[in-house]
C-alpha cells in the first residue's frame, strides 16, 4: 500500500489530492479536543472571545489520552468517537479548520461543511492507543487543564497513521466500504 506523507498546517493543494480510502502519514503540530473542549470553544466564540488555539489550516484530533507515565511524552492516545463533536465542528470548519482526526461517522452537516470549505476528515485506528502514542514527539496542555483528559493539548506528531474518510469531493469511506463488502 502506497502511503502519502503530509504535514501540518494543511495546504489546500494537498487537501485537493487526498482521496477517500487512502492511508496517509501525518506529521507536524495538531491539537487535541473532545466534546467538552469544543463546547467551550463555541461558548467563547459566542461571547466574542478568541479561541485558545489557532484554527486556520490546522488539524484537531478528537482524543483524550491516558496519563503519561514518568519518562513518556504521552500515554495511550487513540481517537474517540467523532459524532459527539458534530454539533460544534461546522463552525470551526467555516473558520478554516482543515483537518479532523477521529473515528466513526460524521453528520450530514459536518460532511456538507467539509465539502463547502475544503476540509478533510481522517480516521485514526480506534483502540490503537499504544501505536499512536509512539508517533507523538511532544505534548503540552495549552487550555482547559481542569478538564483532565479532555484538556486541549498541542501535540507534535511524526508519521501518524491515518485513513482519509471524508474527502472534499463528497466521498465517504464508511458508505463506500460497506457497499463494497455487503453480501
Amino acid at each position, binding site marked *: 500500500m502506497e502511503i502519502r506523507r503530509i504535514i501540518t498546517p494543511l495546504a489546500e493543494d494537498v487537501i485537493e489530492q487526498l482521496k477517500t480510502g487512502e492511508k496517509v502519514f501525518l506529521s507536524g503540530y495538531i491539537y487535541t479536543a473532545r466534546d467538552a473542549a469544543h463546547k467551550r470553544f463555541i461558548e467563547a466564540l459566542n461571547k466574542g472571545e478568541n479561541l485558545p488555539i489557532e484554527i486556520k489550516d490546522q488539524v484537531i484530533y478528537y482524543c483524550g489520552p491516558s496519563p503519561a507515565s514518568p519518562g513518556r511524552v504521552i500515554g495511550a492516545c487513540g481517537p474517540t468517537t467523532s459524532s459527539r463533536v458534530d454539533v460544534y465542528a461546522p463552525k470551526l470548519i467555516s473558520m478554516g479548520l482543515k483537518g479532523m482526526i477521529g473515528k466513526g461517522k460524521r453528520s450530514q452537516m459536518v460532511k456538507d461543511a467539509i465539502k463547502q470549505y475544503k476540509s478533510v476528515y481522517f*480516521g485514526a485506528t480506534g483502540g490503537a492507543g499504544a501505536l499512536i502514542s509512539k508517533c507523538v514527539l511532544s505534548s503540552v496542555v495549552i487550555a482547559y487543564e481542569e478538564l483532565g483528559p479532555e484538556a486541549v493539548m498541542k501535540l507534535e506528531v511524526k508519521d501518524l497513521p491515518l*485513513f482519509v474518510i471524508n474527502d472534499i469531493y463528497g466521498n465517504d469511506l464508511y458508505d463506500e466500504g460497506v457497499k463494497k*463488502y455487503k453480501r
Partner: protein
Amino acid sequence: MREIHVNDIVTVLEKLFVDANINLPDNVYKALEKAAEKEESPLGREVIRELINNAGLAKSEGLPICQDTGLAVTFIEIGQDVHINGGILADAVDEGVRRAYKKGYLRKSCCDPLTRKNTGDNTPAILHVKIVPGDRIKIVVLPKGGGSENYGEVRMLVPSEGKEGVKSFILQMINKGGPNPCPPIIVGIGIGGNLETSAILSKEALMVPIGVRNGDPFLSAFEAEILEEINKTGIGPQGYGGTVTALDVHIKMLPCHIASLPVAVNIQCHAHRLKEVII
C-alpha cells in the same frame, strides 16, 4: 470457614486492572491474527495489522492498549465457605481500582452523569457479586470502554417475534453502531430473565473466550448463524468495509416470563480486555 482479608482483594484488583489494560489476552491476539488472514479488504487487513502491532507495543512498552481504560467492571464469585474480614468488600474493590488507575497511569473515565464532573479515581467500580459453592474467590475484571458500551441496548421483544426477532434486533444494533464501537467487535447477547438479568447475561457472555461455543447445540448454532450474518453486513475492521466485522458472538440464556422476551446486546471492541484470578 476460610478467612480472606480485604487487603488481599485490594492487591489482586490493582494488579488485574493494570494487567488487563496493558496485556491483550492471547485468545484475542490469536483471533486478530486469524482475522488478518480471513479479511478480504486490503484496508481492513491494514487496520488489523495496526491492531496487532498495537497489542505488541502495549505489552513491550507497558502502555495501555487503548486510552479508554474503561469503567472498572468487576465480577466476583465468592464461595459460601469464605469469610471476608478486615473491611468491606465493595470498599476493597474500589481501593484496588483507585490504586490501579493511579499507579498504572490509566485514564479516569468515571463521571457524574449530569454534571459530568469526573470522580477523579475511576471509582465506583461496576461490581457484580455471586455466591457460589466452595471456599475460593474468583475475580474477573473487564475494563470496558465507552465507545463500544454506547451501542448496547436492552429490548423487551414480543414473544411471537421469537428467534428471528432476536436476530433482527441484534443486526439492527450492529448496523446502528457501524464503525463507532471499533470493529472487529465481540458481541455478547443475553436472552431471557427479565430487564436487568438480560443485560447482565449479555455482559457475562463477553467473558466467554473467543471460539468457545455455547454448550447447548441450538444456541451454539444460533451463535454461528448470527456471526455469519454480522460478517455479511460489510462494516469490516474500523467500519472501512470488509468481511470481518465481528470476531465472535456469545449467547447466554435463562427462562423468562410467559409474557416477555427480553434481549440484551452488549458490544465489545477488539481491545477485549479481560483478566481473572482465583484466590
